[in-house]
């Protein structure tokens, strides 16, 4: 993972930040933030454009490609970006190395589990029977 030109010579040698790795994590957080900027605006505007919030309306919207594909991207990107942010907070405030790693494991599992639940629900909306 490239650290870019911003890393100090000592930092390049050690490959250490507070996250104990290179600049890749930092760059990834920026990349997902820009993606979320677009996806979050899509979500807000989509909700505002709906005629109402009845179940049938939401199923029709999320069942279409224009609803399902950006929503899948939003789920994946938002859980990833949120996970990255929480990990940085843990790195900054949890000074015991064992606790730090344990919290990283826990956050990884919670994020993957949460995203999986959301994606399964979306798949059920898209591929399940039509609204009753």
């Amino acid at each position, binding site marked *: 993972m490239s650290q870019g030109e911003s890393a100090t010579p000592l930092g390049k040698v050690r490959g250490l930040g507070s996250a104990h790795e290179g600049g890749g994590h930092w760059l990834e957080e*920026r990349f997902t*933030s*820009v993606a979320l*900027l677009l996806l*979050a605006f899509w979500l*807000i505007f989509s*909700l*505002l454009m*709906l*005629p*109402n*919030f009845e*179940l049938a309306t*939401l*199923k029709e919207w*999320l069942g279409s490609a224009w609803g399902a594909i950006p*929503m899948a991207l939003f*789920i994946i990107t*938002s*859980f990833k970006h*949120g*996970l990255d*942010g*929480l990990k940085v*907070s843990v790195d900054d405030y949890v*000074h*015991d*190395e064992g606790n730090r790693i344990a919290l990283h494991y826990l956050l990884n599992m919670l994020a993957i589990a*949460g995203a999986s*639940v*959301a994606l*399964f*629900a*979306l798949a*059920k*909306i898209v591929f*399940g029977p039509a609204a*009753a």
Partner: protein
Amino acid sequence: MNSKAERPLSPHLTIWKWGPHMTVSILHRVTGGAITVAGLAVLAWWLVSIAGGEAAYADFAKVAQSPAGMIVLVGLTWAFWQHLFSGLRHLVLDTGAGYELKVNRFWAIMTLVGSLTATAITWYLLIGVGK
């Protein structure tokens, strides 16, 4: 790493006079944490309830439209906009721009103005959709 070693920590919080840039800085973390933990939980529950059908969705809608539910949703909307505007500011700061004292302070305040305004507009429009 030995956590018991008394390494010096920056005493910035006890020395500097509190300012809008510091408020916005810590709010970026607080709002980011809130929309990750509470916001993504609401998102997942919302999708699960839509997938679950009429009864499940009615349960979600009932809680979402309760006074406590509305407070959480409006709070999350504000946290979202604050994190978004503050995040945009950070992307600019990442380029090395905007560190002059007055400029930095101005845009810190503008993220607060922007988030409050955007929250008001969002809910004005949402209530219009919800009827």
